[in-house]
């Protein structure tokens, strides 16, 4: 009985641990220190092309089909990946906005943000190098 209880608690602990946060990151030299949820939505959904301080922003994305991409947009906008792609199709093919460039891994994203003072991207919560900083933390359901 006690064993079962311990097992349950352990399993619960696991499920809590897997509810990992997602970090929105920028270059450590960026003059942006924090973003509101709406400001992040505006940037990643192509409503704006600059940070709130009017400095140009280069939004980076993961490749379509990467699990973290689906989790990120769900957490940010409540939309499924297909909805996000359909939404972006309305902007891209209307010639209004350019979709963020897609990268194949989180490590490439971190490296690109570290190399570019205008870049903004998202990664799973993890220890980050000193040349990037977190501007928003999003709770992810998965």
């Amino acid at each position, binding site marked *: 009985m006690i064993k079962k209880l311990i097992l349950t608690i352990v399993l619960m602990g696991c499920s809590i641990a897997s509810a990992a946060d997602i970090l929105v990151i920028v*270059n450590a*030299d960026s003059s942006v220190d924090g973003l509101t949820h*709406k400001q992040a939505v*505006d940037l990643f959904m192509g*409503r*704006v*092309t*600059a940070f709130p301080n*009017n400095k*140009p922003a*280069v939004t980076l994305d993961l490749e*379509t*089909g990467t699990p973290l991409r689906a989790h990120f947009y769900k957490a940010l*906008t*409540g*939309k*499924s*990946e*297909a*909805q996000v*792609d*359909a*939404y972006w*199709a*309305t902007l*891209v*093919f*209307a*010639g*209004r906005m*350019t*979709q963020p460039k897609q990268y194949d891994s989180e490590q490439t994203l971190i490296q690109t943000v570290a*190399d*570019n*003072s*205008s870049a903004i991207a998202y990664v799973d919560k993890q220890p980050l190098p000193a040349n990037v900083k977190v501007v928003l933390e999003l709770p992810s359901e998965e």
Partner: protein
Amino acid sequence: MRLNPLRKQLNQALLIALSLCLSPSAWSEVEHRFSGFATLGVVASDNEDIGFRRDLTQDEGARNNDLYWATDSLIGVQWHTRFSHKFDTTVQVVARDRFKNDFEKSLEWAFIRYRPVDGLDIRLGRLGSDIFMLSEYRQVGYAFQWVRPPLEFYSWLALYHFDGIDINKRFDLSNGTLNIKAYYGNTRADFPTNYNEEGVDIDFNPAGVSFKLEWGNWRGRYTYSSVSINNNILEPLTDGLYQVQSVWADAKAYADSINSEGKTMEYHEVGLGYDNNVWWAQTEYTELTSDSGSFVNSSYFYFTLGRRFGPVSLYAIAGSVKPEEDYRNVTGPEGLPPLYAQQIQPLVEGTQETLNGSYLDQQCRGLGVRWDFASRKALKFQVENYEMDKNGTNLWVNYENKDFTEDQSSTVISLTMDVLF
């Protein structure tokens, strides 16, 4: 080793250029993007006399329950070049079925954008006409839920692009975004008619202003557009009418009314959309008025409601287009010798057909399902029932140019696959 001064300078320049390329701010390099969209679709319509078409730029349609693929199938490719965060260019070419098709018509966009500051866009070149909610992506099936943009609304209002300028300014609100856009340009378009082979060629200048508000789950817009027509689209008819005014007293008035040169069409459009990621709804209403007898004052409307179940979305749609003027009956002069009467008769018929050429009176109810079965791929199936007044079938291809004595109806079944690439 001693370097000569020129070589030293060159080396320094190379080093500076290299360091610029490698520095974090080296994002000014030119970047090219290629992307596209495609739809493969079949449609069947059960009416035997009139053909179902996606919009008035097509002169062939589906009828008699034969499967027809050209209505909705298309492929579009886009080439985007970014020169800096201030300048970029976009070229889009769409291959699909069109009346009098050629490459010039396939070139949907070709413009340069200047963005001096975030939130202000100035575009110059061939631009999408942002007159209605779906105007700028009406060919991108993956971008909307239905098989095609609602027919009662988008079929007659078939303005795709123009050559000119638009300026968009964004205003950031506490919980939303407001975009105000003004545009002006010129374009030519060929439209088929039911009564002549060559159709009509319209040269016109669209101008307008649109207000688009995004607020939480809501989207709303209002657009005012004015289209001024530069040519007389039916010159042979009006010339003929002017010639017979001595024997047909009404002929001059009809010709003046039909002559489209210098006339305008005015649109007032309102649109409202809601989407909470489970339920979604969208509606649009437009009123068209014109001082040319060739364009019947009309109102266009659709409403649609849908619900998502994971990757599957179910939706219902209702639409209508109604004339705001009476159907016009044209009678020729009386008491003429039979030979004269016979000669004038084609002009009488041509006048009646022209005055009622955009008399549209139909409504539609439909159900559909969209299934996002794979990444960037969607399958759609839609069934609609259309009911048309006997005089109001002009959204359809009237192959034999029949005068109907009874109201018409048709059931239209469509299956499409949309992809992005």
